């Protein structure tokens, strides 16, 4: 079996196995898996509205996945994407509400504000790691809580104790009339282009620039990088800031695209944490992140249709979705069996 075939077969078999085990869970709990999966399929691809919403859901996952993957390539574990996303979300919404500017200034300003806010939020753990060797995992986790409650306070302050910043000005919106017209008024917005552009940006930085060369070298071997004259601390900080900027952009997608505002939150959005899974599913490569985000976004959105259309409780749906993702993540097990089978064949 050629390598290429294995590379295609592994994800396909993983998804099929995940669907099968998910079906067993539904059967055991007394629900019809055929009905369930039909509902899932329709939830994702059923009509133009579903497709639009699915892509809309994929957008922030792309960016949170890139954020985690980018830090990973430099050997850093950025668990703080959730917090960086929240501050990015707030920054974009604030700029969108507070300023009156022409669109060609206002929209880029709001987007950049989100990236800068996310980057600054990630600068803190980067600095602490580089200067004081404080582990970034601890700092980023704690920064998530600080972000959550700080943005809540700021939103309340902005709205005189309200729950919501109010809708952003149209000049800062990513809303797409064109997309609305072809997807039956889904919330699909132009942000998807920004997310895809960022996939290219990450690929370009890592594969083409001296900065990417340094970041990867530091990620693999700090000692050899230092010996080769690279500034290891600078690279650690830079990596965190770029990662945070991607996370901030994910927040901008929600502020300027999906919701058009920022509101007080009782808990985390989960997009930042799911970004860890997205990045790992995609082996921390830009193209892999596209794959991971698509899977995550599609399943998450499509699953919403399962309770309505197939009467399967939300809890069971969560289990089924988790099982499918679990099997995809375990792709290497399937790869192992395929290769073992290959070996046996060769031995004969």
């Amino acid at each position, binding site marked *: 079996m050629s390598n290429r075939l294995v590379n295609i077969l592994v994800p396909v078999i993983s998804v099929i196995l995940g669907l099968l085990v998910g079906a067993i869970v539904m059967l055991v709990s007394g629900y019809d898996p055929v009905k369930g999966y039909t509902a899932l399929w329709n939830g994702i691809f059923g009509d133009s509205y579903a497709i639009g919403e699915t892509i809309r859901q994929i957008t922030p996952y792309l960016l949170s996945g890139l954020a985690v993957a980018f830090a990973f390539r430099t050997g850093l574990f950025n668990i703080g994407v959730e917090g960086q996303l929240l501050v990015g979300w707030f920054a974009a919404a604030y700029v969108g509400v507070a300023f009156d500017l022409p669109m060609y200034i206002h929209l880029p300003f709001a987007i950049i504000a989100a990236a800068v806010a996310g980057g600054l939020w990630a600068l803190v753990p980067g600095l602490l790691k580089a200067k004081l060797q404080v582990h970034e995992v601890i700092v980023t986790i704690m920064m998530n809580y600080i972000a959550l409650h700080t943005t809540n306070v700021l939103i309340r302050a902005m709205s005189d104790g309200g729950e919501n910043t109010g809708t952003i000005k149209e000049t800062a919106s990513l809303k797409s009339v064109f997309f609305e017209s072809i997807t039956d008024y889904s919330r699909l917005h132009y942000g998807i282009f920004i997310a895809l552009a960022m996939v290219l940006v990450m690929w370009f930085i890592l594969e083409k620039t*001296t*900065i990417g060369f340094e970041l*990867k*070298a530091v990620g*693999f071997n700090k000692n*050899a990088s230092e*010996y080769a004259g690279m500034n290891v601390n600078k690279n650690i900080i830079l990596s965190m800031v770029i990662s945070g900027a991607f996370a901030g952009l994910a927040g901008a997608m929600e502020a300027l695209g999906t919701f058009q505002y920022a509101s007080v939150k009782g808990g985390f959005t989960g997009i930042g944490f799911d970004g860890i899974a997205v990045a790992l599913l995609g082996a921390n490569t830009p193209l892999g992140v596209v794959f991971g985000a698509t899977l995550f976004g599609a399943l998450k959105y499509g699953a919403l249709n399962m309770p309505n259309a197939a009467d399967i409780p939300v809890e069971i749906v969560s289990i089924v979705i988790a099982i499918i993702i679990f099997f995809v993540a375990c792709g290497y097990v399937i790869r192992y069996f395929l290769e073992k089978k290959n070996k046996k064949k060769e031995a004969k």
Partner: protein
Amino acid sequence: MDYVIEMLGIRKEFGSFVANDNITLQLKKGEIHALLGENGAGKSTLMNVLFGLYQPEAGEIKVNGKSVKITDPNVANDLGIGMVHQHFMLVEKFTVTENIILGNELTKSGIINIKDAAKKIQSLSEMYGLEVDPYAKIEDISVGMQQRVEILKTLYRGAEILIFDEPTASLTPQEIHELIQIMKRLIQEGKSIILITHKLQEIMDVSDRVTVIRKGEGIGTVITKETNPNELASLMVGRQVDFTTVKDEANPTEESLVVNNLVVTDYRGIEKVKGLNLTVRKGEIVGIAGIDGNGQSELIESITGLRKVKSGSIKINGQDVTNKKPRQITEAGVGHIPQDRHKHGLVMDFSIGHNIALQTYYAPPISKNGIIDYGKVSELAQKIIKDYDVRTQGEETLARSLSGGNQQKAIIGREVIRNPELLIAALPTRGLDVGAIEFIHQRLIEQRDKGKAVLLLSFELDEVMNVSDRIAVIYDGQIVDTLQPKDTTEQELGLLMAGQHKTGKDVKQGEQQHVE
């Protein structure tokens, strides 16, 4: 004849690559049997087959005359086969006893019985003259002692047959001498030993018979007494090898490296280099001879900018580089073959091509405005792979998957091609076979003949004697003497390295000579 181990016609394949082909090795009871071969000849593969880590595609293994299938290392253990690995597998924070019983703990109603284990280890240690303290922590004992712990580990588990995988690679001459005594003691007590090595002198000193493999094929077995290093070398490499390095008289010109009254501390803040003076001129090779731990690493690290200098100065090509950053020093015209090629020399998960660009990626012609031209990287890599005989499938291959000798050749290519005025080579031939060593020595001499300065750090006396034009002996953080290789002997160097003066008295502080 009684053989304790017979490996007959062993063949091991990895995909289409044949690592071992029809190799036969027969170990007699009570002998030291050397297994000789170049880096990548298939010695480790063969031993991993014996140790149960790999299953052979063809061939038979017999232990004490009985055919056996060694399916995993536990089976090998039960058959009395123990392996002393080249890279020790010890837990630094644990004591000797804890390391030895790891995975095989003696328990009394569920509680580990350290005392009895320590007693048993103590008595084993005394029996074989190992002098290991069962309660010492691994991180506190020397590399030589750590190796003895590895030996004890196999003995503790009842090994009758010991495999030593390149045991002298990281030892000092003194430790090597002691190891040889230990091996002889083991034989006296009825153990049998397989010694994997590519050091010919060791084989001549210690082994009874030698099995040679070349490029995965068994070449044959010879009796040590009936052969000589030259014959062994040509059996191993497949051609005649020149041992004496041929070189012309040196033509030293102006000073390239001037180290003045240098003081450097190690990571604990303890002074390791204590007011050291050293000069290297263009057109000469200065060899630093000394026992490991006398400040060599700290000296090299401070010259190359990896470690801060406490006081004193370092000048390179007239430029003061004291406490400058590594890149500024590199740009002052320094090439550096680092002591630890895995830690400092290479990014193991980068391709060979990326590694070759590691020092030059940031400037033209490799990159422009922060964008790397990977076409140029590939060109440079292919040139080095060709010129420096780096044996690899291509520049895309990961550095990790190259043999040690080829990794080293790639590093040397990368450093030399920049044409540095000063080349610092720290243990450049450690762990390499004679063919690669010959090649690397020639490159160093070539640089000298081009009028470059070369500073060579080595723990191998014959390397220092052969390659250097001047020898600076380092002891306790100072250069205690400089000598011409032709005016000295290994005995004299050995004494100086151990802190004795030519007359036999101790070298005292302030009495050491300045080097030129």
